[in-house]
């Protein structure tokens, strides 16, 4: 039992599971804060019922997201101690700033929000939700800044046998991290928006709480449209930067083997990693990859064959992940555009509502795929170009990791099942009837 492989698997399970909940927390918190502000400003109780209904779903999701995040911070120590020792001087500080600046704020204020309805004025209570939303997103910013260092290390030097920080501001303004942030935050908003639209569609199809869910749908629609455009725009900037600083990842994203000018993209391919070429490909369009990567149809794009075999990322996962993410991202723009045209006759568009209801899982898939591209595509490096994943694991016995991995799968699987079950149940139940709430 290889502790490196098992630790990778465990980290993948833990992060991907954690990330089923985090984006909804990030996106939904902002939208709920907006709804509650509307209530505080207008006194319109429909907004209050909206806030409480979406808030209920938010809290179940939040609970699972928070508890599964704790293990991640500690896993760098438990499973990746060689990594932690080597880059802790740089990476550790970014990870430590996150709770200090953001997570404290989020966790303290979420308690106030949940229990503080009767102790705070409506305006103050809405402000508390803004604190939760801002702090949560700030948390993500710091985590992405830490991840940015792993993707594209800057602001350090090798001294005393480890990476030591030389320039804190270079770390904070790492272009790679900034691009991840501007890509990730709108992605979370897309997910939050589709979550709201999907559940609203369910109730609108049943013709219940029509006013509340029409308003919810419309708020989410505008946010979803703007954010899915932003996601595509920043995604393009991000891909251009990746082609500069992580050429091997870009080549794997496109399953691009031979270095060439006017490099084509293929719509679909089955890479044969052992033979170093595509076993089968379909729909090759010349020049497009050169254009995507360098905004120049004639630019030369380095192929995987020009990287030593031991420095190539797993191609199939990276390639497929990227295809699925981009495809879904395009679909989100289309769906929200159609919705925007139909916004004033939602009730007469049951077909569209049905599609939106079934579209709830799609942003989840897109986001998970995005992270798979980012993290698998970074391999074999744990810190790109600086340290290999194989050198980073703790000197611990494989059986220990095996046991903890099984525990992770069981506990997280159960939590996820219960969490999603409860969310579905509460979503279907719908909001409290109007009479009970003042």
């Amino acid at each position, binding site marked *: 039992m290889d502790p490196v492989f098992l630790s990778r698997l465990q980290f993948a399970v833990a992060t991907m599971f954690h990330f089923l909940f985090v984006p909804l927390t990030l996106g939904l918190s902002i939208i709920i804060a907006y709804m509650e502000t509307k209530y505080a400003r207008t006194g319109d109780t429909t907004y209050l019922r909206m806030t409480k209904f979406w808030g209920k779903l938010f*809290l*179940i999701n*939040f*609970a*699972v997201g*928070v*508890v*599964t995040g*704790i*293990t991640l*911070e*500690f896993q760098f*120590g*438990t499973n990746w*101690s*060689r990594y*932690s*020792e080597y880059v*802790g*001087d*740089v*990476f*550790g*500080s970014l*990870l*430590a*700033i996150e*709770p*200090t*600046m953001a997570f*404290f*704020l989020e*966790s*303290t204020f*979420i*308690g*106030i929000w*949940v*229990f*503080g309805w*009767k*102790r*705070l004025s409506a305006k103050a209570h809405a402000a508390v939700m803004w604190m939760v939303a801002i702090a949560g997103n700030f948390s993500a910013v710091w985590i992405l800044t830490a991840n940015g260092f792993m993707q594209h290390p800057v602001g350090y030097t090798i001294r*005393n046998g*480890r990476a*030591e*920080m*030389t320039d*804190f501001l270079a770390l904070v303004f790492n272009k790679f991290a900034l691009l991840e942030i501007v890509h990730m935050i709108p992605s979370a908003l897309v997910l939050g928006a589709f979550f709201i639209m999907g559940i609203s569609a369910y109730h609108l199809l049943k013709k219940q709480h029509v006013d509340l869910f029409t308003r919810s749908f419309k708020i989410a629609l505008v946010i979803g449209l703007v954010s899915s455009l932003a996601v595509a725009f920043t995604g393009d900037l991000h891909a251009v930067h990746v082609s500069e600083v992580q050429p091997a990842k870009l080549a794997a994203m496109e399953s691009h083997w031979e270095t060439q000018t006017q490099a084509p993209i293929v719509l679909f391919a089955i890479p044969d990693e052992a033979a170093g070429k595509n076993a089968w490909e379909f729909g090759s369009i010349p020049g497009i990859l050169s254009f995507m990567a360098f905004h120049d149809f004639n630019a030369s794009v380095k192929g995987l064959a020009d990287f030593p075999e031991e420095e190539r990322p797993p191609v199939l996962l990276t390639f497929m992940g990227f295809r699925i993410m981009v495809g879904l991202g395009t679909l989100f723009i289309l769906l929200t555009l159609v919705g925007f045209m139909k916004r004033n006759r939602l009730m007469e568009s049951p077909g569209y509502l049905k599609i939106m209801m079934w579209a709830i899982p799609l942003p989840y898939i897109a986001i998970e795929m995005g992270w798979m591209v980012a993290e698998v595509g970074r391999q074999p490096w744990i810190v790109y170009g600086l340290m290999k994943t194989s050198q980073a694991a*703790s*000197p*611990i016995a494989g059986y220990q990791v095996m046991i*903890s991995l099984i*525990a992770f799968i069981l*506990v997280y699987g159960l*939590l996820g099942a*219960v969490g999603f079950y*409860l969310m579905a*149940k*509460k979503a279907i139940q719908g909001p409290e009837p109007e009479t009970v709430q003042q």
Partner: protein
Amino acid sequence: MELQTTWFILWGLLWAIFFMTDGFDFGVGTLYPFLGKSDIDRRMMINSVGPLWDGNEVWLITAGGVTFAAFPKVYAVMFSTLYAPLLLILFALILRGVAFEFRGQIHSEGWKRIWDACIFIGSAAPALLFGVAFANIFRGIPFDANGLYHGNLLMLLNPYGILGGALFLVLFMLHGANWLAIKTTGDLHDRSVATAGKLWLAVVPLAVLFLVASFFATSLYDNYFKYPALFLVIIVTVAALLGVRYFIAKQYFFRAWFASAVTIVGATFFGIAGLFPTLYPSLNNPGASLTAFNASSSPLTLKIMLTVVLIFLPLVIAYQIWAYNLFKGKLTKHDLEY
């Protein structure tokens, strides 16, 4: 003061604050099956910590994060050598966290009983395991210069480790009982006060035993004999523990809780002061021991992090005090609605 020394103290302080704040949450959760006779009692107990536990738990995340930032080698070696107990603690904390949220979602007895059990396990297990872990750290952990652990999970359950676990558990239960005495009324209140009295009687012999056993099982007292002023830590801790009894008898429950908070901080610093400058001593290979000087980050990182911490931690403390203040006073039926 040198940067490393400052960070050593801050490191100890963060753990102490975590034990002091989440400590009463753990205590309430451990007392939960014993004091929560009815569903109303149990909801009262959950809601007594409901608005605060989440913020309290972040002190753990921060203590962990700061260990990473300021003493990366300690973070790496400590958490990999304590792999099994640490993951057990984390899984327990996961159960506790979701249990608070999930329990009220479905109104069925069986459903509630599952999450009731999770609240108990998720509170008692970390209390106990943190005690076992820290007692073992005071004693030294069997690891070598490569950060390799030479032992197994059962070795942590030596008599001194178990004593540390028992002391932490009972101390947190006392702290939790004091909290319940502040927050509750009626029958639950009376039972909490009576329980606090009984727990105090259990803490005293354990504390005495721990102080004596530390003399034989650890070298913590070396620093105390070198700097006798450090005995003040022990004196304050013992005085605070006596204060708990006095304030319970006088029915000053907030003061009793405050005194148990000071006792916990004191107990943590009893060990931290004895360890200095070592953060993570090796049991059989003193040369491998990790200290504030051989395991710290570079001066630049320490300075930047110190700036961050000195700006933000006072802010955190300020808004957390505001939150405590917002939810002060006895729980009423009103608070059960949420």
